[in-house]
């Protein structure tokens, strides 16, 4: 563990504007994703407004950067919580609380798995796919009526309202709770949100399937047959082989042959 020298005690306090600047920079959290330190550079870059606010001497800035450019990983949105905690404990350290840095290092290591697990489950496996499925259905339903843009705006908001909220609120909560950040992650938190997205997306997708079947069937019954056949064939092929390109190529080739035979 890196020992940090106590900085010259600073009376400078973090302002809301600093937190907002960290929030803006957090949109580039994964910009320097690399195999050695994962998202640490993005994390460190997010905290530049904080180091500027807290320290004016070179030595303290060097130590600050050293602390935050070490290995770190998290879900990119949920990393906001770690940013908030870091801001709070760095502020405490700058104010003379000498053990704040050790606490921060331990906490950041603990948060890697918690934030990754919560974020992946909430966003990558729920909000993202189900918002997009709802968007697919709405766009398919409305594209002919000229309201396609409205469907897209709806899907965009469906995803980005919780995204922006957690990104910004994560920093605020991390800053507010500091070392007690674990209190933010009870088992039940986000449960209702997840359920709402899962059911909205699933129902929307069923609706989409019904409309697609009706549309293709009314256009040409052979198209409906081709779609169903391709769905079954590629479903089985992918389930058995787990090879994406093989499945795509096989489906494409077979249905080109089918087209040649029918023509």
């Amino acid at each position, binding site marked *: 563990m890196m020992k940090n020298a106590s900085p010259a005690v600073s009376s400078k306090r973090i302002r809301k504007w600093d937190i907002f600047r960290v929030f803006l920079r957090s*949109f*580039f959290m994964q*910009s*320097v*994703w*690399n*195999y*050695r*330190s*994962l998202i*640490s*550079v*993005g994390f*460190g*870059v997010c905290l530049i407004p904080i180091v500027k606010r807290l320290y004016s001497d*070179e030595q303290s*800035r*060097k130590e600050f*950067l050293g602390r935050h*450019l070490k290995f770190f990983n998290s879900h*990119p*949105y949920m990393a906001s919580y770690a940013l908030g905690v870091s801001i709070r404990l760095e502020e405490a350290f700058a104010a003379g609380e000498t053990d704040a840095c050790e606490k921060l290092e331990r906490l950041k290591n603990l948060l890697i798995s918690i934030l*990754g697990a919560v974020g992946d489950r909430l966003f990558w*496996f729920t909000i993202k*796919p189900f*918002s*997009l*499925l709802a968007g697919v259905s709405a*766009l398919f339903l409305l*594209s002919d009526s000229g309201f396609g*843009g409205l469907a*897209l705006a709806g*899907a*965009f908001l469906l*995803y*980005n309202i919780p995204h922006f909220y957690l990104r910004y609120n994560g920093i605020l909560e991390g800053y507010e709770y500091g070392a007690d950040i674990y209190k933010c992650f009870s088992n039940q938190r986000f449960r209702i949100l997840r359920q709402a997205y*899962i059911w909205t997306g699933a129902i929307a*997708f069923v609706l989409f399937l019904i409309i*697609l079947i009706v549309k293709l069937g009314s256009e040409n019954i*052979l*198209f409906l047959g*081709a*779609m*169903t*056949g*391709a*769905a*079954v064939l*590629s*479903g089985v092929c992918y389930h058995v082989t787990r090879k994406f*390109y093989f499945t*795509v190529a096989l*489906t*494409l080739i*077979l*249905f*080109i042959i089918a*087209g040649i035979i*029918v*023509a």
Partner: protein
Amino acid sequence: MSNLLLSLLIGFLGLDTTIAFQVLISQPIFACPILGWLLGNPALGMEIGIMMQLIWLNVLPVGAAVFLEGNIASMVTCAIAIQFEELNLPNLVFTAAFVIGMAVSYLGAQLTVLDRKLNGLILKLTLEAAQKASLKQIALLDFTSVLIYFLMMSALAYVALWGAGQMIPLLIENLPSPAEQKLEFVKPAVWGLGISLTLPMIFRILRQKS
């Protein structure tokens, strides 16, 4: 719109996948209608966007996993389909665009790995800048990394669009004349493919929930 401008736009939208923003504008359902609108056919942009979204929905750029670049691939597919729309051979053009898109998804994945390796060098330079407490240099290195990815993906899109410009006229010249009719099952098959890749994901999440 020229291929160069189009490629730069695709590269810019592609940043959203993992590098910057992550507000989903790179997803086919958003990116393809944007391209469709800019290229003068929003309806085709939306149709291809929906189709490609179903195919690539399952791909998650999580952690260190090598993920197929479905977003860039979808944008390239959409751009080619709209650019060659005036040939009035929708099935042939869509089939060619889809195949080129698949190649782009594979090459995009390889370029992402290369970009992540190059980022190792950026990390090294960043640590050196940190030793000098040079905040400006650190911010500049961060921006350089974004720029490298943007240029890589733009170049990939440009090569794909240029390749389509060479390949599609050749196909028209060399394929027997009723090829268009013979390819009429390709679009329904791609719908089926998308559904078969999406449904297991939905069932998996529903099972986990219960």
